[in-house]
């Protein structure tokens, strides 16, 4: 009797396993379709794209769009600009977030709770509400069309501070006390104990910062006006304007801009998802 019961339970779960697998598979398919469109359109001529019936694969594969992209627009330059600014902002951002995170995780000091409240308050305040005054500030600094405007204002990211604090809390206090007895300075400990121990976290925070900078649109739109200075997002957004390029070229540009992000994610997906979700679950 016990045995039979178990069998029926397994039968029921087989149906549910099928349902669950179907849900996931349909979801995967739906997620993939817009990407398929993007890639497929990158290798088509305009006539092929706007012709009925609509096909998934190009009727004729062509590299025409990539030539348009490289010859008629500043695409290569935008790519370089984006890599340059995103890298600098990432390195500085990770370091500064780790510093603040270490202060919150490993030290007792006056106003600690108040300062942490500031971090949390900034976390809920949308940065874009300050668009106008921040732009005026950049103008006063002479930073319009200057990458300092991209790198500096968002450099200390409160979400990153929050993440780093959680990771650094796991560094054992005993290790730090032992180092103190051996005469280590606090700054030396930060560089020689804390940073090496939270290296995976630095990677996660770094990649998140890099991706955010890579994808940000509104702020570069506000502070970069010279199209040679554009980042990828502004560049791609305006490609139908002054350059009069076609759908295929826009999709080709989008494809190349998305590629590195997807590859990085493929390599580090486990760590990235863990890093992102950690804060939300602990509440």
């Amino acid at each position, binding site marked *: 009797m016990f045995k039979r019961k178990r069998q029926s339970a397994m039968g029921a779960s087989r149906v549910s396993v099928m349902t669950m697998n179907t*849900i996931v598979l349909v979801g995967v398919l739906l997620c993939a379709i817009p990407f398929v469109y993007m890639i497929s359109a990158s290798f088509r001529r305009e006539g092929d794209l706007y012709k009925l019936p609509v096909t998934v694969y190009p009727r004729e594969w062509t590299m025409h769009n990539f030539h348009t992209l490289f010859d008629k627009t500043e695409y290569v330059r935008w790519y370089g600009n984006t890599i340059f600014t995103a890298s600098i902002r990432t390195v500085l951002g990770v370091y500064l977030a780790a510093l603040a995170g270490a202060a919150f995780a490993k030290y007792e000091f006056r106003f600690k709770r108040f300062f942490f409240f500031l971090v949390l308050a900034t976390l809920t305040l949308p940065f874009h509400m300050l668009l106008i005054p921040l732009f005026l500030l950049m103008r006063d600094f002479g930073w319009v069309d200057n990458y300092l405007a991209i790198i500096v204002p968002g450099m200390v990211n409160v979400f990153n501070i929050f993440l780093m604090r959680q990771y650094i809390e796991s560094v054992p206090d005993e290790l730090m006390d032992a180092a103190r007895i051996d005469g280590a300075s606090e700054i030396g400990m930060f560089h020689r104990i804390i940073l090496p121990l939270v290296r995976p976290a630095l990677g996660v925070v770094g990649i998140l910062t890099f991706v955010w900078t890579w994808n940000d649109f509104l702020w570069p739109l506000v502070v970069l006006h010279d199209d040679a200075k554009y980042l990828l997002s502004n560049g791609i957004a305006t490609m139908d304007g002054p350059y009069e390029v076609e759908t295929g070229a826009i999709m080709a540009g989008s494809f190349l801009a998305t590629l590195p992000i997807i590859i990085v994610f493929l390599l580090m997906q486990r760590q990235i998802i863990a890093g992102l*979700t950690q804060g939300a679950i*602990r509440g």
Partner: protein
Amino acid sequence: MLSAHTLTTANKPQPFSLADWWSRNQRKVIPYIFLAPFLLSFVIFTVYPAGVSLFLSFQRTRGFQQAEEGGGVVLEYKGWANYERLLTKDKRFREAMINGAEFWLGTLLVQMPLALAVALALNSPNIRFRILGRLAFFAPYITSAVVVGWIFRFVYDQNFGWMNSALAQLGIEGPAWIRDANFVMPSLIILGLWTWVGFNSLFFLAGLQNVPDDLKEAARIDGANTVRVFWHITIPFLRPVFVFVVVTGGIGSFSLFSQPYLLLDFPNTGPFDSGLFPLMYLYDMGFLNIRMGYASAIGYILTVVILIITGMQLLLFRLWKV
């Protein structure tokens, strides 16, 4: 040598030495140094602009000075006029706020249940495509909003877009999507689903993996069925995830910008402003119409609305805890 030195000077008053002071007090001082970049940045790029913005929101911008005069903004004090106009007369602003609310409603009613369903599917044992699923569900989120906006603009094309081609396969004649006032919001909500369902499901998934198995097992032994276990054990454990998803969804809905900007080809905002969002209106007023004071007032109203909504949500979730 060193010890002799320490011995002889131990009882005498020492001349003040910075190095000595530092080695004794660094543990007290260092957290402030570590926090200095954050605090500086907070004052310069948050507190100061927030003050400037408040000041501006009571002014009318009359234009810019000539470059030789410094190129500053020429202002005129207007009292509460900007706020009054926004709250009582400005139909575009009202439309933008309503659109934000509609998008948010779509997020709550469609996106969250779907995300939870996907998470439950991903969490069930014997699932096959776990890694593929994780990649596919995360990819839309990390794709630039500009790229997403472009893709969907083409996918929604009435005659050649994939959306209507797929519908035609099912025998349905598709609408004009982003060119039809009634379908702009659904277009945006679908775009939102595509971007965020998978992302949010990963949060739910992480939450689900935090639910202790033995607790569920114990409840089952006590005779609780699957639905009751889900309702009384799984859902309460997911509370922080719900809070996170609802709050970020609310903030995100009212500050939606890049997706509608690209989808609708800003400064177009869809027929009858059906795709106008508050942040787009702020940008329009501040940078295209150079009415910085008015735009600042928009920013403040928007911030207050978002804070009220977030506060209300947090309160609701606190009540739920009891």
